[in-house]
Structures are given as structure tokens and as C-alpha cells.
């Protein structure tokens, strides 16, 4: 993240520091709620006075104009406002990796990234991998050929994490790739087939 972006206080908005504090405060309410009469787990509250700002994002090579709240995460913007539901929200707290997207080729958890902080950066989601004519990205094709994944809920996140890792290590060993995507959780635990499929996808990419 760029400090210059996230530390900018916007009218009626909040800073990154304030955002994190609000999240911590919610956690504190949740864990201490049992001590008091009242609702627990209420989640982040509406911040009175917060306003949406119309900003421009670069998503999958397209300029997208979108109204964004100061505290809005990239996962919320992509899924709820831009209709890009390929990324999933499995935990909303940076634990499972289902929401992984590439930001300037670096894998990021979209649930833990403020949308305002990625203005001017290239955002790539799973919807941006296949060509317009439907031809799959070689990584996707490798996974398809090996019948990778079971329920598929984690698949978009794994694909994006793999792409980001392959940008730094195009010819990894199986173990290196496992480390590269270890921030992503598959609850079907189909890791053997996932790794086989991703390795085949990586091989496809090297051939192209």
C-alpha cells in the first residue's frame, strides 16, 4: 500500500489508521460482548457523514468509474458494484485467500485492501484471465485438463495467487509452488490435485 494514498484524509471519510482502529474496536466488542447486555458481533457500523466518491479504477484492463465509500474494501467494490463475483469472500479478514486478486501483478487479499488505495493500479481478477473469444488462460487450461479443485470456491483465489507467484518464479518446483500459494485455503483439502493442476498450468504458461 502507498502511505500517500491511504493516509490521505478524505472529507467525511477515514484514514487507514481509523479504518483499522474501527475493525479492532469491532473485534473488542465481539470478544467482550458476553460481559454486557447487548448485541455482540454487530460488525462495522455506519460512519455518519461518510460519503461515496466517484473514482476511476483500472480493472481487467478497463477503466471503471465507480462510487466508493472511504472504508470500502476492494472485495466489496468488485463484487457489489462492478459485478465481478469471481473472487469470493470466505473470511473477510485475510485468513483464507478466496478474494485474492492481482494489484500491479502482486497477489493481494481484496477483503483487506481499501479500494481508495488502489487507484491508478492495475487490478486483475479471475474474470480477466480468459480471452474475449473464450480461450482460457494457459493456467486455467492446465487446471481444467487436470480436473483441479472440488467445490471451486477457492479456485479464483488460488489462480490469482499462482499467477502472482509465477511472475516471480516461472518454473517452480512443486514444493516452491506450494509455498507460493500457502496463503490460500482449500477446505475440500484437495491440495494434491490442486498442485498437480497448477503445475500443469505453469508448464502451459512456459510453453506459450
Amino acid at each position, binding site marked *: 500500500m502507498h502511505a500517500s494514498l491511504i493516509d490521505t484524509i478524505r472529507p467525511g471519510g477515514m484514514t487507514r489508521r481509523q479504518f483499522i482502529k474501527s475493525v479492532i474496536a469491532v473485534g473488542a466488542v465481539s470478544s467482550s460482548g458476553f460481559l454486557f447486555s447487548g448485541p455482540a458481533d454487530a460488525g462495522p457500523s455506519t460512519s455518519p457523514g461518510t460519503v461515496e466518491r466517484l473514482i476511476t479504477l483500472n480493472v481487467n484492463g478497463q477503466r471503471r468509474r465507480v462510487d466508493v465509500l472511504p472504508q470500502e474494501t476492494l472485495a466489496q467494490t468488485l463484487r457489489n458494484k462492478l459485478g465481478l463475483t*469471481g473472487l469470493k469472500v470466505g473470511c473477510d479478514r485475510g485468513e483464507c485467500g478466496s478474494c485474492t486478486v492481482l494489484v500491479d501483478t502482486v497477489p493481494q487479499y481484496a477483503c483487506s485492501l481499501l479500494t481508495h488505495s488502489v487507484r491508478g493500479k492495475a487490478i486483475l481478477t479471475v474474470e480477466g484471465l480468459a480471452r474475449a473469444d473464450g480461450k482460457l488462460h494457459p493456467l486455467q487450461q492446465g487446471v481444467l485438463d487436470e480436473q483441479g479443485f472440488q467445490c471451486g470456491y477457492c479456485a479464483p483465489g488460488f489462480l490469482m495467487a499462482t499467477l502472482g507467484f509465477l511472475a516471480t518464479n516461472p518454473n517452480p518446483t512443486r514444493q516452491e509452488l506450494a509455498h507460493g500459494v500457502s496463503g490460500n485455503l482449500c477446505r475440500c483439502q484437495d491440495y494434491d490435485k490442486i*498442485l498437480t493442476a497448477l503445475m500443469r498450468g505453469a508448464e502451459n504458461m512456459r510453453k506459450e
Partner: protein
Amino acid sequence: MAENDALFTPKLTGRDYVTPDLRAKLTGKARFAADFRAEGMLVCKLLKSPLPHARVTHLDLRAALAIPGVRAILTADELPPPADSVSDSGAVIKASPWAERALTMEPLYQGEPILAVAAIDEATANAAIEAVDIAYEALPFVIDPLDSLRPGGANARTEGNVWLPSAKPGELPQIGELKWTAAEFGAAGQNRLPLGKAADQWSYGEVEASLSQAALVLDETFVTPNVSHQALETRSALAWWENGKLHLAVGSQSTSQTVPAIAKWLNMDVNDITVISEYTGGGFGGKGTASVAAIIPALLAKKAHAPVMLRASREDEQSIGRARPSLIGRMRAGFAKDGRLLGLDMFVVMDNGPYEEQNDARTSGRITSLLYQPQAMRWRGVAVLTNTPTRGPQTAPGGLQASALLGPVLAKAARRLGLDPLAVCRINAPEGRPPVGPPKPDGSLNAATSAFVKQALDRGAATFRWQTRRSRPVPVRGSVRHGIGVATGCYVAGTVGFDGLFVITPQGRLRIHTGIGNLGTESFSDAQRVAADTLDMPWEACEIVWGNTGRHLAWSCVSGGSQTIHAMSRAALATSLDARAKLKEIAAKTLGGTPEDYVVGGQRVFRRDSGDQGLSFADAAQRAIELGGIYDGHQCPAEVNKATQAAVAALAGQGLVAVARDTFPRDGQTYSYVAAFAEVEVDIETGKYRVTDLHAEADAGIVVHPRAFAGQLAGRSMLGIGHVATQKWFYDKEHGIPMSRRFYQSRPPSILCFPEQFTWGSVGIPDPQTPIGARGIGEPPTGAACAAVLCALNDALGDDKFLRAPVMADAVLAAIEPESRQTAVGLSANV
């Protein structure tokens, strides 16, 4: 089943292929429930109990409703009373007065939903939750089952603390009170399960006599963990109403079977409900027919006159997303010199949670009787209510616990008797048509359809090089210790009596309408390979319609308990045979002769004595439409389910409609088995360990789809290993508050936990009691792998080190240095 062999030539069955759902999963086009959108959609948030047991004494919603953007609030008194349900055989199942409901004014665990808000966005809904004026009266609570069984122990519910069997057959089980005496607790000591009064029991053979004749009697107590399902997709549902009918896009393991479940919870007619569940982000038993929470957005949508989306947060999911119940087991096991299990006295106490009685305790007895074939056995059990999240079946419910409880006992017996643990597994393994407890009313035992576990052990041992590993010098490298383990697992793997339905279209294609759910096992597609094979259709000419009951689906089994490939491959075959009969009849009516003069192949039906004379499938489909009646679905066989009948009526006239119920015979109960072999590497300085090698060898009949089969073996093995290695419930017992609320506090194994070497195999012997020969594979790896790793840890560190699973680094260090570390005492899963 020999009469069917000629009707089914596997060409596609048994081969890998690309399933029709995968491309969408990889491109982001797959729509899981939370991916649906509707015009004017509201979002829903839950207010959950902060207390483990309480009564709501004051509730004022005015301030919450006054917030701009809040459209409706749903409370427990607005829920319809749950309806009685009717089984396939027509038997009425009365609604239980103790069943979990979607909302409650007497929460029975911390995190139980009390009310729900629908608002224009999540922030507004959360603001409304905060504005609710609510007060509670705290009620007594209990977290651990043994605490509730103690004299004077708290009851989780005001009505009692245990489930008692129904007084008469056909009646509901009852909640009652059961307390054990101080003397019973005292006699057992600290780390041994007291043997108080059981709520239920059964036995066969002379158990005490068998124990008295045994060369070795072990008396072991072990605690299996509470493990949340933790599906990556949290409970999600979008509900909307059109013309008085409910449309529900919901994450559910099943499709057609979810309709009556929703109808029961909403007290509605099944004909007024459409369920959409194209993709489901993991279930593991926790979303068998969706879950009761799915009715919350349905009722809110009705109240707010707008579509409503429920997407549970991760903390919500930990509360309402189900968990496997812990079993505290005590096993008195008597062995002969050769390792044969002569007698077994098994007592289990189940941490049931607050609601419906779970079957894990009883099933653990059944699976134990089958998997280890004790010559005499007594099972006793009690399901104790606790103020902890609602339990539900999780992969191999009761089966995993059976393996975790008994697998290490067999290995310990082998060491005590100077035998190879593999040999003890083998000598006790079921074979042929093995008996299964509990006994029937006449005292005899049921039988399984088949078991080839000895073959699985032999093949697995060879692949794993068990004897080589066992006979090699114990590798010692610095602080690293090695251990190997072998164990078996088994579980129910098939049901019968469901429907298939497809249309041969005038374009000559096969359009299969299946009600099987799609949760990633690929059974919804794999089972249809049988239909294609039976009709000699290329897979490219087949299309599967699934995941939306509005698209006229056949009545299918619940996609749970690994029953689907068995149940629905039978239904697919039955339907294909119906299609073949109709094709031949249509040909005879069109071209002359009798149906017996014709054969089906190459997408044609033609005279067996003259291949030139025949009809293409396209022509036959067109002819079916002209003939009408049974041929194009205007008449439907009465024996298929009403849901299938309705689907047939909707598809009538679209082509040749084939529809049938599976009526193939089956003699015995259907189970699958796995033999697992594991090696662990333990660092005794840090307590960390890893599974370096794992082999899973299946006995699950023929393999329909190898890659999916292997995925189940690997994935479900890891699910079992999570019970040993990483997943644990922690509790603040003073306040009754769970501390494991997210992935990082009870983390499923990551990709780095996967063994360096994983191999799999399958005995591949067809099940003799089903025409395709296939059985389910999802369940049994879980217990087998869990127990194999436990055995390997014991092999590395010695017997009697661990009282409970999971075995985490602190437990390893405490086992190695008991004098310098505080070990967790007591028989609680929630340390």
C-alpha cells in the same frame, strides 16, 4: 446382477474427463448463492446471543426500525411452526418440539441468532442491530458433557440434559435428565471415563466372558475433538417471491431434497418452492439440505416485499455452520494372542450441543462392530446436551470417531502382544459379507454387501512399503523422531430407490435432468456417465441440467454420506434401460417387427439382422413426440416420486422422455472402506510434527471417475488429519464463550500440511449388490487417515501419551517432558 452385465459396457465410466461445471469455476462465472443479484435486493444481518444460555426479557425494535434504510426485522415469534414431514414410504415424521429453529428467544449457545434485520446495505443492517434495545436473563449453562452428568451439574436446557430413546417405536426421542453419582466419578479417576448409566445400549455375544478369556485386556479412554465444518462458503441464500411462490438461491449439498426441507421449516407446500443451488462452496455434511437459517431471508423477503440476501460472516458461520460432536470413549478390549479382538465393551459420551440428537454416538458403535469385527460387543452411549453450537453430521459422522477411538487401541495391542500392527488390523478386518451391529430384534446381525479390506491392507502395505519401513533401523536425526501407523476406516456408501430422468431430444442429444447437488464431488455428473455408456452415447452429445428445481429435475438422494454415486448410478442405469425399451418399441411401431428385433448403439436403434433398417435417436425422439403417452412424457410411471412426476409433466412433448425409479435388488447394507498408512516426523524440541508420507487404499467398488475419486481420497484424508493436527475448540468456560471463532484460531490444514508423498490406490472389486458396482468414497478416508496419524504418533513417542485429539505441539511437548509442562487434565474436548 449378472443379468445386467450385458446392458452396461463401461466406455466412459472409469475414465477421466472434464466435468461440465469446472470451466465456470475457473473463469468466475460459476454462481454460488452469494453471487446472485436481484433488483432492489436487501441484505440481512443477524443479532446473535452474547450469552451461552439466556432468555430474552426485553426487546424494543423502534430505534432500529427508525434508521433510514432498514426495511424489516424478523423475530422468533414470526416463524411458522415447523411442519410434520412425510418419508418416501409415506410415514409421517412428527415435528420435534425440541428442534432448532432459525431464531429464538431462548438462545442455547453463544452466537445463536435471535433476530434478523433486512436493510439496504450491510452497514445499515449492522447499525440497526446495534440499535436494538434488548435485555437478557442469564440461565444456567454447561460446556462439557461430563460437567452436566455430575451430581448437581447444570442442564443445558430447562427440560433436561440428555437425549433419551423414544418410549415406543415411531415416537420421538425425549429430552430428560440423567446424573451420575459421585461414586461413579470417583471410581473412574481423573483420566478415565466413568461408567455411569447409559441412555441407550445394545450388545451381542458374551462380552464379559470374552474379556475374561483374552490374553490381553486394554482399558482405554480417548476424547475426539469438536470440529467445525468451516465450509469456505458461509451460509448464503438469496430469497425472493413471485406470485406467492418462493425462489431460493442457496448453498446446499442437495438440490431436489432441499425443497421438502425448506417446505418443512416454512410450513409450505413443496410446489410453491423453487430451489437454485448450482454451485456450493463446500458442505462436508453441514449443508445437507441447506440449513434452517435459509428461511430467514425467505421470511424477510416476504415481509419487506423485496429480495433479501443472507451472507453469514465467518463468525456467524462458526456459530451456525455446524460442527462434528466430540465423543469421549472408553473401550475395554480383549485380544487373543494372535491379535484377534475377542470382546469389546464400548461406552461413549457425546457432546451433542443443544438441539437434535446426533447419530455419531450410535453410529460409532455400528461402524466399530463392522470395522473390527469383535466376536462379542457391547455398546453403551449417552448424548449429553451442552450450550455449544448446534452439531451436524460431518464427513463420516461417527465413523471418524470409531476409527480414532479404536485404531490406536489395535496398534497398542499389537505392541503389547509383540505383533505387527498391520497384522492386527488384518486379522480383525471385515471380509465377505461381514456382520454389522446393532442386533436386529431377533438377535441376529445385519450384513454388509461386501468387504475387501484385507485386500486393501495388502495392496496398501505393498505400495507404502510397510514392512521395509517397519524393519529399517529407527531413523534418529538430532531431535527428530519417526513413527509409522496403519488404520482402517469405513462408512455407509450407498442408498437405493431414487429416480432418473432424461430426454432424447429431436436433435439427437441426451439432456439429463438431475436433482443431485453439486458440492464438488462431481457425482452429479459422474453418475450420468453410466447413462451415456448404457445408450452408447458420446459424452459430447450429453447435456446435464442441474442445480435449479425450476428446470424440472428428477428426485435424487441427499448428496451426503457418500451415497450418491451408488444410488444415482443405479437410477441412471434404470432410466437408460427405460430409454432402450422405449427406443425399441418406437422402432417396432415405426419399422415393423417386435421390440426384440431391435438393438441400440451408435446413437441409433436398428434391426439386429439388418443394420440399415433403423432410426437415429433424433428420428426416434421425433417419433416419440408423435406417439405421445409414455414415450414423450405425457404418461409417467406411478412409482416415481411426485417431484419426478411433476418434472416429467413439465418436459412432456420435448422428445423421448425416459424416467425410472431404481428398483434393482440389494441384499445387505452398503459400506466403503479405506486402509491408510502414514509416517510422521516429530521434532521433540519444538513439538512440531508433520505427516511425511500417506497412502490411502480404497475398497469402494469400481472407480467411476479416477481424478474425482483420488481427490476424495486425498481431501477427506486431510480432513481427518485436521482432527489430529490443527483444529481445536477453545472455550472460556467461566463465561461459556467459544474462543475459536475464525480460521486462525482453529485452522484447517493448509497446503503446507499436505504430506510430501501422497499415494492412493483402489482394490477396484465391484460391489456385488449393485449393477454398476460403484460405492461412495468420500467418508471412509477421514477416519482411516486420522487414526493412522494417531497411531504413527504413538509409534514415534510411545503409548499412553495422548488422551485426546488434536495432538498439537503443546501436547507433544507435554508428552515428552511431563515433569516440566502442565498437561491438560480432564476429559474435555474444549481445552
